């Protein structure tokens, strides 16, 4: 790894700390987070290495990889950290910064699922699971994914064909709008 003023971005690390409310520097690399992480096996950088890369200001490597999108938010790392590094919150902060930069990560399917889930809240107020699955398949190009599961779940009443919007949908839209405005004015990260 080449460390220089060009590759290190300490401002980014400060932003992660502000968003997550957790120190990054406090980590002393015991590796307990990665030992208990159910998703480490799917990541190119396990959790403790993500923190080490952050300590060294290697923001591009962190955001470009798929590790942050493969975190399941199971909170095992934060629960077990002996130095009270809130790694689950740091992962949230990293995903937000990646998201705001329009997802430079190679992992796009998790981001797509997140986007559709949040769109569903804004449009309907509650999750419309059938629509979530159908649009995910179309947008991800996996038209046949879970094809046989859909009818089975419909027949069991586990998927609803139709879904009505919340009566108070305008209040939900208001929350989304006001958060956007706060960010524009610099009142929120």
């Amino acid at each position, binding site marked *: 790894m080449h460390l220089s003023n060009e590759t290190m971005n300490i401002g980014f690390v400060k932003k992660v700390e502000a968003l997550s409310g957790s120190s990054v520097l406090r980590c002393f690399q015991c590796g307990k987070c990665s030992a208990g992480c159910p998703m480490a096996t799917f990541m190119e950088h396990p959790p403790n290495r993500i923190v080490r890369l952050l300590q060294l200001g290697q923001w591009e490597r962190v955001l470009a990889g798929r590790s942050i999108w493969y975190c399941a938010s199971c909170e095992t790392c934060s629960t077990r950290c002996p130095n009270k590094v809130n790694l689950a919150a740091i992962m949230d902060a990293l995903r937000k910064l990646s998201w705001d930069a329009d997802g430079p990560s190679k992992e796009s399917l998790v981001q797509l*699922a997140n986007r559709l889930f949040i769109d569903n809240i804004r449009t309907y107020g509650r999750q419309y699971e059938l629509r979530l699955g159908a649009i995910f398949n179309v947008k991800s190009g996996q038209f046949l994914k879970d094809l046989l599961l859909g009818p089975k779940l419909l027949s069991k009443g586990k998927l609803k064909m139709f879904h009505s919007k919340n009566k108070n949908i305008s209040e939900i839209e208001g929350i989304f709008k006001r958060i956007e405005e706060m960010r524009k004015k610099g009142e929120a990260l």
Partner: protein
Amino acid sequence: MTPGKKRLNYAYYPGCSLHASGREYDISTRALFKALNVGLKEVPDWFCCGATPAHNVDELLSLSLCAKNLSLAEEVEGDLAVACAACFSRLKTAQHHIQENPATKRQVETAIDGPARVDKPVKHILEILARDLGLAKLAEVCKKPLTGLKVACYYGCLLTRPPEIPDLDDCEDPSIMEDILRALGAETVQWSHRMECCGANFTLSRPGVVLKLSDAILSSAKLAGADCIMVACPLCHGNLDIRQQKIDEGHQTNYNMPIFYVTQLAALALGTAGDKLGFDSVIVDPRPMLREKGLL
């Protein structure tokens, strides 16, 4: 909570899954409260808590959605009963951050354009059963003890982690599920995967993750000699039940492992008829096993 002579009442936040893929959790929760003669009134016009996707990319949105839901819950009498582990975790997290951090509270109040009324106690169904009612009371009202049923209690992630938020039980070695089941006459097995992640919402984006992690959970429960697994989260249920056939196909296994919600087993033990607990909604039919044990 002062029950006094009045009937115990709860406000109820079912969450999105309980109106669709986890409908039997909603059906059995209502049946259980009826059997317990405890009031349960759904919060009107509640909306999605944001679950994992919202806090994954936008913490402020997640906190604001939950704060608004908690404000809506203020209109209904009683503590807020939550069945879904993810909704429970998000609502408790929002409550915790807003109560502890004045700057967060100000931002959330701007976002929801009003006061963040978040002080109503948020309680998971497990907590209501084990603490508000109490194990002695459960044993007393148990009409059909679950004798001979060996259950693997599966906690998953969000009921106990991170330790400062849910305040439900020990974060590494909880026993609230086992305590409830033993009060209702069931046997609980000791097993290795009580607290391991099932793959959660990767079921949509990366189902391969779920197949691997949930296989390990099913395998561990089987090895421990369990007849079934009990969960308290619709995502855990979906991954272990709906995805079980696919797991079998991919791993050359034949688990045939029924997955119950805590409310289904508790209501059954309290004498609710088996056809009122949504057993026909699940994929791995638990009825043959229950009949074999003489519980149905």
